């Protein structure tokens, strides 16, 4: 009896906590589909009488949200692909090739990933202006490919260090060179690690704010977080418009979370053993 009581007590406390954690999401969703008049009269907790999509639609058109989604998608996907490729090359040399100075390289890549972006921001801003890449998505892709692949190199090198030697030897006996061995043997076998990296890079790049804020100043080049972030405090932003903008920021993140959930939980564990 007391065991059952304490069981319900624990579950009640946990449920309450999760409700508190999830309540901001619920508040945003509830008020993004509420008319401003209804918000003014009934407040944020009332259920909307009818679903009101005009706030969302107006905001979507005003910021050209489709374009922002497209920009974010192009940048994140390009970074994810390129950073995975660079990570593969680095990790092939460090994990499988065990080139000299391997330890130093690994520490370098780890630190490179941890560095605060503030320490790179101004010189990168200056250099990108000098070479005419300022305010282009290309420069954002290049920068994040370097930053993300630093992490990828660190993680993938430890995966490749444990790569079955027999397979490499078998490939060598079959007459495959290092280039062929990499693409025909190493990459296919490590596909699951690579998909974890791809997922991470995509989501991390999607979520980035500081450097895209600095490098993408024209409206039509901006990503979702930058476009939404710079609008806050704008006079046009009333209660329901702000919650509509929040909802538009939340939805893609949750969609990715649902799509990638399995890969992500695997990846968090991979992060734990690094």
């Amino acid at each position: 009896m007391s065991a059952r009581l304490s069981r319900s007590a624990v579950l009640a406390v946990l449920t309450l906590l999760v409700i508190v954690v999830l309540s901001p999401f619920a508040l945003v969703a509830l008020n993004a589909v509420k008319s401003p008049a209804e918000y003014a009269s009934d407040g944020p907790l009332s259920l909307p009488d009818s679903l009101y999509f005009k706030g969302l639609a107006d905001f979507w058109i005003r910021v050209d949200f489709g374009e922002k989604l497209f920009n974010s998608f192009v940048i994140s996907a390009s970074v994810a692909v390129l950073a995975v490729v660079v990570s593969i090359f680095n990790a092939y040399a460090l994990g499988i090739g065990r080139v000299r100075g391997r330890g130093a390289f690994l520490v370098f890549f780890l630190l490179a990933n941890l560095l605060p972006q503030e320490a790179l921001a101004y010189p990168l801003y200056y250099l990108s202006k000098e070479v005419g890449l300022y305010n282009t998505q290309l420069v954002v892709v290049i920068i994040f490919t370097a930053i993300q692949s630093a992490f990828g190199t660190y993680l993938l090198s430890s995966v490749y260090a444990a790569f079955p030697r027999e397979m490499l030897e078998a490939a060598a006996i079959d007459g495959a060179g290092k280039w062929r061995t990499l693409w025909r043997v190493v990459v296919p076998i490590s596909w699951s690690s690579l998909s974890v990296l791809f997922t991470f890079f995509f989501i991390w790049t999607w979520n980035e704010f500081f450097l895209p804020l600095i490098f993408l100043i024209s409206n039509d080049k901006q990503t979702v977080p930058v476009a939404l972030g710079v609008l806050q405090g704008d006079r046009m932003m009333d209660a329901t418009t702000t919650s509509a903008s929040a909802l538009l920021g939340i939805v893609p993140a949750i969609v990715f979370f649902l799509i990638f959930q399995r890969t992500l939980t695997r990846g968090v564990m991979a992060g734990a053993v690094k």
Partner: protein
Amino acid sequence: MTTSTEVERRPLAGAAPARPRRRRSGGGYTVFLIPGVLLSLVVIVVPLLMNVGISLTRWQGVGTPEWIGLDNYTRLLDDENFWASFRNIIFLIVAMAVVPTLLGLVLAAVLFDYVGKQVGPRTASAFRSGFYLPQVLPVAVTGIVWGWILNPSFGALNAILTNAGLDALAKNWLGDPAYALYSIMVIMVWFQLGYPVVMFMSGLQRVDPELYEAAAIDGAGWWQRFRRIAVHLIKPEIYVVLVTTTIAALKIFGQIFVLTRGGPGNATLVPSYFAYQNFFEKAQVGYGSAIATVLTVIIVVLAVVFLRIQARGERRDLL
């Protein structure tokens, strides 16, 4: 660095496959490092060195930087905003690293050990997903969500309080220096909590159930088992979480930019926003670079200390 070219590598691998395997000095692999190393040089090493160089100058971003030695650094020591930004960071480390780690430990243990076993693993993982959800949001979006909830004129929180007849509790959460930093702290706990919960729950899977049973037979209560066994065994995860979240706290920018821009006054100023202000709003590029350099040194020292501790831990495990 030694680089052997394609030409000498190919025939060796084909004709005498045994030989290249024997001399494992890594010959022939170095070439694969070229793209990664070039990229890191251009995007990370050169800018980092430039940043340190700029920090020794007075520069507005145009014209020739004027060499002033360590003046920017001595100026930092007298700058009230600099100290405020680091004082605020200590509060944010509490909110982003310390509290989520402690709370995450308890939640993970309860979810894994109690809910997972008494109710079922599916319930446990549903709770875990719930706590983790804020983590998937872009930082700027968490700022937007909370900026709206805490808005003094049309925010949800004050509206809820007023409707409940608690007008007295309605505050200007982000605009009043007495509350702004605490409001940000609450937001950051909300944002970070899921990460330690997920990490610790996966770590707890390593704990041998027999160890727990043996301890229970010896009369150890739940709390004792938790402290003596669980916490001890997931130490690696605790280290990783503490270090990564502390570094994340030191780097915090997005939420501050969206929610308060460091204000009111310097109540929520943080080093990264302070550097940003000097770079792009005040055109004091040298001074901003000095702030960024100090932040970098702190983060690198922290990371190196952590790597040392981790390496020592691994050696001990091997013995």
